[in-house]
């Protein structure tokens, strides 16, 4: 490793002005140990919630500001969008280089503004019939339109799952931003472009908090999905994310991978089913042929028996006639 003295020689920066990550981390950690950051009560909107190994990880939001939080203890069930009061202390995690609010208690105090507005929009769209569903997508699509960000993991997750189901169908990709100011406009254009030209449209995106998924909770997008001629499958976010786009779609999938699975019946299952039918037909025909052969054998035997009986009768008659004469 290069020494501070060498850097001073090579770059002219005094050695006593140079520090290390561990030294500066220790200073930051020390600065966080103040009464102001210990035993705080923080009010904010809960988002980006996930659970891992029994611990809760979430973000508290307030306008553009946000704070990472972790809760290691059990407590009230946490819901995305809730307005909560979190009691705890701010810790600096040197290994991750970031501060986090370690919650000892979370108290729900109301519904967050974003969440509240979203619930109102969903109610309005529900009353307008936008969530009534439409046509079932084909089980064996020949062409599928895929709308998502070209670089997103969601795209490869969908394709990987779909190709297992149906390696033969054609995929027509229409790139669109799935986050940011242009997202709604690009998603609307991509769906409009594909509508009527493919068998199924798949709209997919990875997980995120209520803010990240804003485009998929847009009223115009929900209404357009409900109005499309082509059936739409959505796989947006994680299993717990109930977006406007997902509710308006003909098929809701939990994730992009799930959408890939639901977009087509597995061709190998269809082939297995057809193979069973082939076998059944052949077995039924073989049984019919055996029956036919048995019938013919019975008829042959009956003919032989009748012929034999005729001979016996003729002989008997001849004998009787001889005796009489």
């Amino acid at each position, binding site marked *: 490793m290069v020494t501070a003295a060498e850097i001073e020689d090579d770059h002219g920066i005094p050695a006593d002005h140079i520090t290390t990550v561990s030294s500066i981390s220790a200073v930051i950690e020390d600065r966080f140990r103040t009464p102001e950051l210990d035993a705080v009560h923080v009010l904010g909107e809960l988002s980006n919630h996930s659970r891992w190994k029994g611990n809760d990880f979430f973000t508290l939001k307030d306008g553009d500001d946000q704070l990472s939080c972790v809760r290691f203890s059990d407590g009230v069930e946490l819901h995305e969008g809730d307005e909560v009061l979190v009691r705890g202390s701010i810790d600096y995690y040197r290994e991750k280089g970031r501060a986090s609010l370690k919650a000892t208690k979370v108290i729900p105090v109301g519904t967050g503004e974003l969440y509240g507005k979203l619930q109102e929009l969903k109610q309005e769209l529900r009353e307008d019939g936008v969530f009534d569903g439409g046509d079932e997508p084909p*089980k064996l*699509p020949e062409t599928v339109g895929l709308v998502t960000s070209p670089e997103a993991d969601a795209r490869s997750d969908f394709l990987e799952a779909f190709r297992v189901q149906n390696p033969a169908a054609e995929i027509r990709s229409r790139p669109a931003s799935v986050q940011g100011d242009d997202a709604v406009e690009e998603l609307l254009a991509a769906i409009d472009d594909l509508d009527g030209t493919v068998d199924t449209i798949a709209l997919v995106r990875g997980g995120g908090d209520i803010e990240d998924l804003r485009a998929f909770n847009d009223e115009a997008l929900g209404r357009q999905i409900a109005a499309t001629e082509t059936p739409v499958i959505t796989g947006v976010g994680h299993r717990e994310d109930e977006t406007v786009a997902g509710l308006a779609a003909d098929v809701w999938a939990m994730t992009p991978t799930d959408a890939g699975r639901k977009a087509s019946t597995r061709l190998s299952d269809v082939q297995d089913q057809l193979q069973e039918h082939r076998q059944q037909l052949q077995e039924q025909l073989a049984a019919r042929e055996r029956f036919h052969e048995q019938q013919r054998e019975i008829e042959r035997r009956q003919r032989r028996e009748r012929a034999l009986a005729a001979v016996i009768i003729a002989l008997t008659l001849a004998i009787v006639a001889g005796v009489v004469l």
Partner: protein
Amino acid sequence: MSHDAEFRSLLDRIEETEETVQDEEVPLEEAQDAVADTLEAIDAFEDGLTSD
């Protein structure tokens, strides 16, 4: 015709063929022809399914 419609039509045809084979009133040769034609239709459908 879409693959879904073709598949439904094929399943109907398979069912009709099974009835034909099991119907003793239908001559054996006719049943044999029906099975041969349906097996051919299954092969053609499978080819179409995987060759898109």
